[in-house]
């Protein structure tokens, strides 16, 4: 028995956006969100009624995010010089995305799914392959790395 898709969007829209934003920036994350929900809407009537909707959406979001990254990579124009980093107050969130994006893939996904999307480790294990314990370890390693790489500012 499926509930109206509108409820699915209402309940999981924010989570999926967090997942997309954990691996992509700005408009790319939003494109991945849109593609995720459009694909989900298409497949929704065939979803087994007892399926875990959130895990299903996160799986689609991960695939769509990879698609968006691949498209961006194909259309990317190499530049001679990297633009200078502009550090301003309020840019800490962007720094965090940078730090998360710099993690090894398994750690990055484990951190994103657990700490940003709120998925339990057994579901993350299903998504990433491996055991729940391995997923927990990857997330813990990722957080340990973030503690070193994410520039924290001392309050005066």
């Amino acid at each position, binding site marked *: 028995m499926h509930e109206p898709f509108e409820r699915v969007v209402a309940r999981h829209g924010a989570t999926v*956006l967090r997942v997309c934003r954990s691996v992509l920036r700005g408009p790319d994350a939003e494109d991945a969100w849109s593609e995720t929900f459009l694909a989900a809407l298409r497949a929704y009537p065939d979803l087994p009624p007892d399926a875990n909707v959130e895990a299903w959406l996160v799986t689609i979001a991960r695939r769509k995010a990879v698609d968006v990254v691949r498209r961006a990579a194909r259309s990317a124009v190499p530049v001679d010089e990297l633009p200078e980093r502009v550090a301003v107050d309020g840019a800490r969130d962007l720094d965090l995305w940078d730090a998360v994006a710099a993690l090894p893939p398994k750690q990055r996904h484990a951190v994103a799914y657990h700490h940003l999307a709120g998925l339990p480790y057994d579901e993350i294990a299903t998504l990433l392959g491996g055991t729940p314990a391995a997923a927990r370890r990857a997330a813990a390693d990722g957080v340990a790395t973030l503690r070193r790489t994410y520039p924290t500012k001392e309050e005066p």
Partner: protein
Amino acid sequence: MTSLATLHDRLVRSAADEGLLDVAYRTVDSPFGPLLLARTPVGLVRLAFAVQGHDAALQELAEAVSPRVLEAPGALDDVARELDEYFAGRRHAFDVPVDLRLARGFRRAVVEHLSQIGYGHTASYTQVAALTGSPRAVRAVGTACALNPVPVVVPCHRVVRSDGSPGRYAGGDEAKRALLALEARA
């Protein structure tokens, strides 16, 4: 950063473009409280009063029509406008197409005949039973009217008791009296 509301609007547009918006819905204000309006590509498929439970109506649509149900107010602008005009006494007939798929069998036959009762007129349950060619099915006509999936637009409120009293109504007996009074003023 783009809000979830904006992303939702974008999803509704893409869904419509891709032919995936099987059921579009919105709520509108009315003299009888908020009304739920839902349409398929065929036409208006459901109008529900608040007392009927909007969540239950949406769940029924998900099960009986398609779970591809999205809130898409723009898709029902024409219905909302015609209802406004009707409640203001400026409209006597609805032009929006209706989709009667939620009424099956005899119920469907009854609902299809209701549009023959003109604005400001009434018919008794007995007369409607005769109209549908089943003169003994008076109680079944009452049930069909009570379960009319698109009340107001398909005028089950114009079916009254043989003694002229309004009788029951899915939107509440008071709403039926008010609709009959509205049409009597014209």
